[in-house]
């Protein structure tokens, strides 16, 4: 296992190289002359051709793409993430500033989603084909159909404007987490809940659950000590993926709730063709993503002893 973990950690660099390479080339393939778009972001609409040229020279944007990438990589190896092409801000500083907000929101949202999803899914499975189950299903299906931007605004309207319970925007104390985490969590919860239910139903039909019941355990023990661990595999997979998604893709929620996160930074940078910033963000997301998928893989082996990664048989 240690060997496997070491191998996987080494693979992180491959993923980084892959993601950044793809992102870099894709940025070039995206329409528009990068120098021009960057100049637009830097100087506004009043542009002169010479300005674009100077900028292109100064930032080395006229070099061939692969060279640019290699140069960037070279800097990276010296742990130099570069400066934003648009704002000249230090990329690393900027990302490290935003990352905590993103990570915190991701963790809280994931917790919220699991807190909603697991009980719902479990209840649905235990009370299969009852009114309660149908109720849980109804809520889940509606939950998954409601887009984040809609739900987010509705929550703000309800909890911030009407009930004055939570702030409507901003990053700060715990109360600031409630609405964005609820928005993100509830839409993810729907899928997780349904997955939990399906997976648990499958497990509950197994003979070893029958055997556990035969030992006189109450439902709770059967569920928590015997069934849940087996049923958790797809749930963990999904949660892991969502964590990754939350790290990089919660743009809409970040912008609705004015959350100073990395998602919006990334998207803004993409539109401004801010290569160094995009690369920085992508790199960090890739690292976190790889780690979360490694954690999930380790959890597999912990959950199910039959799963082994160093396959000697």
């Amino acid at each position, binding site marked *: 296992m240690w060997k496997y973990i070491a191998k996987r950690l080494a693979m992180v660099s491959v993923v980084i190289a892959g993601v950044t390479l793809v992102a870099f080339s894709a940025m070039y393939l995206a329409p528009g002359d990068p120098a021009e778009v960057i100049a637009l972001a830097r100087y506004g609409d009043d542009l002169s051709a010479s300005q674009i040229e100077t900028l292109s020279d100064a930032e080395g944007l006229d070099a061939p793409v692969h060279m640019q990438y290699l140069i960037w990589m070279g800097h990276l190896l010296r742990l130099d993430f570069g400066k934003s092409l648009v704002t000249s801000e230090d990329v690393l500083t900027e990302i490290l500033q935003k990352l905590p907000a993103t990570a915190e929101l991701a963790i809280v949202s994931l917790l919220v989603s699991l807190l909603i999803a697991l009980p719902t899914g479990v209840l649905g499975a235990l009370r299969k084909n009852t009114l309660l189950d149908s109720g849980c299903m109804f809520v889940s299906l509606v939950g998954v159909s409601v887009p984040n931007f809609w739900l987010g605004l509705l929550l703000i309207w309800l909890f911030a404007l009407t009930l004055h319970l939570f702030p409507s925007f901003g990053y700060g104390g715990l109360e600031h987490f409630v609405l964005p985490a609820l928005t993100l969590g509830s839409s993810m919860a729907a899928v997780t809940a349904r997955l939990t239910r399906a997976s648990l139903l499958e497990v509950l039909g*197994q*003979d*070893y659950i029958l055997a556990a*019941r035969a*030992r*006189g355990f*109450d439902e709770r*023990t059967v569920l928590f000590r015997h069934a849940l661990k087996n049923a958790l595999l797809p749930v963990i997979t999904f949660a892991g993926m969502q964590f990754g998604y939350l790290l990089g893709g919660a743009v809409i929620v970040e912008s609705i709730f004015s959350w100073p996160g990395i998602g919006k930074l990334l998207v803004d940078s993409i539109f401004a063709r801010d290569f160094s910033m995009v690369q920085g963000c992508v790199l960090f997301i890739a690292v976190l993503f790889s780690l979360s998928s490694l954690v999930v893989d380790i959890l597999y082996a912990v959950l199910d002893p039959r799963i082994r990664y160093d396959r000697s048989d």
Partner: protein
Amino acid sequence: MSSPLLSIEYLNVTFKTSKGPLKANEGISLEIREGETLGLIGETGCGKTTLGKAILRLLSGNAKIEGKIVYRDTDLLSLPEKKMRLFRGKEIGIMFQNPSACLNPVLSTGRQIAEIYRYHEGVGKKEAEEKAGEMLELVGINSLRGHDYPHQFSGGMLQRVMVAIGLALRPGLLIADEPTKGLDTDTKVQIAELIDGLIRRENASMLLITHDLELAGSFVDRIAVMYAGEIVEVGKAAEVISNPKHPYTLDLLHSLPGKGFRTVSGQAPGLLSLPQGCRYHPRCSFRLEVCSQVHPALRGFCDEHLTRCFLSEMGRRKETAPRSSLTEQSAPSYVEEEA
């Protein structure tokens, strides 16, 4: 003898299948007395396991149970599920027939035993693990292997883990479904003695489902023989073994390896297409006219020895009969045609 601990009356178990209802148990009436071991033998697929599971109401969702199962004055079938739980494990324990499916693959075996103590006796984790270790040692498995998961165990070891689990709580009634299958002779004897010893010491009762007639002969007080969903013979163990009254029992005893693997031609009927009359009559070498028309009832032969056979009713029983033996049996038809 003492009063009945468990009495089963007119038990019917019907499985709903895609091809219609399947009566896996039909009109079963049995008693297990306090301190008694009842052996249940019979052809595979005749409904023994079903009966055992029915007692604990552990049958799958497509089963319908009718009748009465009374355990110490409680009708188990009319209990709500919540109350039923109180009878499982502590009062009535069960060892399942298929250990490889009945152990949770993601929990270590030791933990699965320890869990029982923690739940039922409320002991701490440490103590429960110790007790689990003891239990494993009792069934001849090194307690260190308690950390291992079921897939790391051999078939016989899993079987023994099932035994350990079944015995863990010293239940008042133990339903043991082939507890010694897949064990080598020494281990088998050791396990059988272990179970028997515990049962006797606690003055508990046991329903022992087995195919091992020798085992049944030496450890069991009474024997019930099942065929195609019904009880065809019940009686004292020694009586049934030495003096079987039902032709099926007789055939069964004759087929024992020690006696040269004699078989009966034909096969047990599918439970969906039972023959009219006596269910054994197509294979029976004592077949009478009536056998194919009227379904015999289970009747007292002499006291405590019941059988479901017209022959015994009439007291006309030949001592020996020609029996198809191995040499006479033809190879299955498909073998003849070359592929």
